[in-house]
């Protein structure tokens, strides 16, 4: 047996010297390997990053699918309770491509059978042109679309469009305004918020309440009919924050048919029209005098003789020809007393006061139809005298209402607004008179309704207060004798004021029932009374027993009367 021998004898091998070429090859391999592993490391890192962490640059599939939301070209407008006032609905518009059309004459005849008010000759002429696009009719009804489709005329097609729809028609026409056929806002809030309505899809919430709006519009319309007036205006404003709950101007229009609007119905008497407001201005004059401390509730002025200034004579409409105390001046609406009161305060102070309560600036409400007040160029004594009883200074009803709101709500002026304020948002106002003066003004206003010229504005249980105003209309440069602007500005409830209610009838004529009178007390005061009786329960105003002793005490006024030098006290 052959001894186990190694197959290959173990030779003691000497490590051969590494040739330099192999050395280079190895280091190259090492570098390449390192590079590759680095690359793989990056890939691994990315893989972990992509799978486990969400990056911003990644497309978000979940969002692109997202929530299905209806996007209209123009946001809705809703009232304060969310009732729809304006919305955009999809409609189909018919157009033609005359190049594709086979028989123009036949097409026109067929179309006319479905759309009878189509002008055949005009359409035929249009279709004979060498064009590829012609509007035939915008905004068809679904039925018309179906019938046109049924005709099967080649070359006719529809394009989806949107149309602005106002479900409540003329109810809030002046504040909403309207849009043109391409949905651009042309008036009212539609114009003022045009950009917002296009960009946003969230509804625009107005401060208007459709129920109050309807009550005001209906009562005004009835008054206009009864007294054969040419128009009317009405406003309801929340005195605590300046929100306008209702604003009506008659005659009004249907914003659904912008092409049919009569030019004179566009005129907004509540914000664009400026008028001499007459005796309602005495609220400002009296508040100003009381607040300045120039006269007290027990003080008064001699109203025995009319005042002569240059070529004017200032008289009283309900002349008493004696000394009148402040409550009497207010209750009997004495021009003479008001003039003396204003002069007692001073010309400069009067101007400053009216400036403070927003009477000398255009109203800041959010529509485009706003009238600038007509202010005398030079504010002289004669101007101060006439302005004290509401002549020689024309303002819009909106300005008057905002000013009166500040007189009764405790003395804070809030800029009027048509947009609902967010619940809990801080109401910013500025103090214009003291709370004490405001309380006195409330008593005076209550007195007018309880005992004076505004008795017809009473709404049992709601402690209405107010002031009548009758002014002759200015036509050209003179007063038109028989044309009156009869107004009444009221507020309720007078113990804790919530709303100012204003009504104005343009050129009313007296009736048998009013013994021929067409003054504010006969014409506008009943409107305010009826409106308050209707809206107070809706607005959550609590009715009180007006005869309750604590209420009577709160509204009581001591009236000083002076006869033959002796002062007597009578309490109302």
């Amino acid at each position, binding site marked *: 047996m052959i001894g186990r021998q190694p197959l290959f004898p173990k030779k003691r091998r000497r490590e051969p010297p590494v040739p330099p070429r192999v050395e280079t090859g190895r280091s190259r391999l090492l570098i390449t390997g390192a590079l590759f592993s680095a690359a793989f490391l990056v890939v691994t890192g990315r893989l972990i990053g992509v799978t486990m962490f969400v990056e911003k640059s990644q497309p978000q599939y979940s969002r692109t699918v997202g929530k*299905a939301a209806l996007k209209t070209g123009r946001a809705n407008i809703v009232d304060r309770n969310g009732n729809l006032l304006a919305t955009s609905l999809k409609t189909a518009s018919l157009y033609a491509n005359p190049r594709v059309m086979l028989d123009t004459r036949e097409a026109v005849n067929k179309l006319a059978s479905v759309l009878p008010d189509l002008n055949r000759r005009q359409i035929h002429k249009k279709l004979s042109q060498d064009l590829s696009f012609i509007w035939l009719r915008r905004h068809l009804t679904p039925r018309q679309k179906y019938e046109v489709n049924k005709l099967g005329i080649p070359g006719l097609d529809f394009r989806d469009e949107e149309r602005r729809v106002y479900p409540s028609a003329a109810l809030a026409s002046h504040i909403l305004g309207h849009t043109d056929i391409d949905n651009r806002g042309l008036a009212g809030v539609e114009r003022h918020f045009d950009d917002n309505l296009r960009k946003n899809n969230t509804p625009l919430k107005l401060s208007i309440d459709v129920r109050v709006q309807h009550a005001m519009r209906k009562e005004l319309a009835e008054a206009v009919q009864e007294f054969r007036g040419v128009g009317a205006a009405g406003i309801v404003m929340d005195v605590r924050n300046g929100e306008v709950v209702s604003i009506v101007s008659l005659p009004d229009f249907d914003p659904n048919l912008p092409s049919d609007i009569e030019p004179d119905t566009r005129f907004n008497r509540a914000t664009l029209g400026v008028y001499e407001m007459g005796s309602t201005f005495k609220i400002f004059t009296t508040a100003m005098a009381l607040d300045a401390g120039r006269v007290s509730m027990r003080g008064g002025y001699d109203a025995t003789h009319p005042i002569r200034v240059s070529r004017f004579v200032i008289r009283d409409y309900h002349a008493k020809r004696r000394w009148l105390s402040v409550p009497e001046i207010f209750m009997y609406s004495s021009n003479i007393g008001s003039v003396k009161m204003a002069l007692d305060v001073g010309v400069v102070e009067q101007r400053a006061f009216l400036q403070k309560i927003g009477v000398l600036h255009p109203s800041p409400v959010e529509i485009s139809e706003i009238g600038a007040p007509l202010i005398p160029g030079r504010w002289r004594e004669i101007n101060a005298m006439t302005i004290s009883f509401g002549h020689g200074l024309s303002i819009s009803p909106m300005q008057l209402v905002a000013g009166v709101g500040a007189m009764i709500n405790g003395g804070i002026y809030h800029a009027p607004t048509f947009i609902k304020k967010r619940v809990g948002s801080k109401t910013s106002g500025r103090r214009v008179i003291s709370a004490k003066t405001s309380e006195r003004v409330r008593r005076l206003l209550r007195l007018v309704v309880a005992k004076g010229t505004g008795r017809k504005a009473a709404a049992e*249980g709601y402690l209405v207060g107010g002031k009548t105003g009758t002014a002759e209309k200015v036509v050209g440069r003179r007063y038109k004798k028989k044309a009156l602007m009869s107004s009444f500005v009221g507020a309720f409830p007078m113990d804790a004021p919530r709303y100012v209610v204003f009504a104005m009838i343009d050129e009313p004529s007296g009736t048998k029932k009013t013994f021929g009178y067409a003054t504010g007390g006969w014409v506008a005061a009943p409107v305010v009374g009826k409106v308050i009786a209707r809206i*107070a*329960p809706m607005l959550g105003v609590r009715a009180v027993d007006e005869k309750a002793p604590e209420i009577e005490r709160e509204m009581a006024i001591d009236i000083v009367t002076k006869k033959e030098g002796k002062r007597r006290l009578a309490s109302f």
Partner: protein
Amino acid sequence: MIKAATLFWMFLATAAGIGLFVLKYEVKSMEGQLATIHSKTLENLEAVHVLKAEWSYLNQPARLEDLGRRLLSLKPVKASQTVDIEDIPFRPVGARGGQAANSSLTNPNPPAADQVPPLFAKIRRKQ
């Protein structure tokens, strides 16, 4: 040994391929479903939108007032018809209808049935 590893990797690759294929088709069909649901939702939203406009048209105060006058025997609330909650008397103990369920709501000294406050009496008369 090498063969087993190869087999394992081949199996894994095939499984991943099939898995991906199945998943992709499932996602595609679900996307299709989602799109259908979306277009239906949009259709419904549009219908709701139109209905809302119609609802608001039908709810015009003038129309409701007219309907109310013709079809209901209801009239606007007068101030004299409203009462403060504090003015409503507690149900007398032992009156018709037995004991009030919650004794804390019952007035310990109830007014006699014929001594209801005048405001309340006015409402009763009207009924």
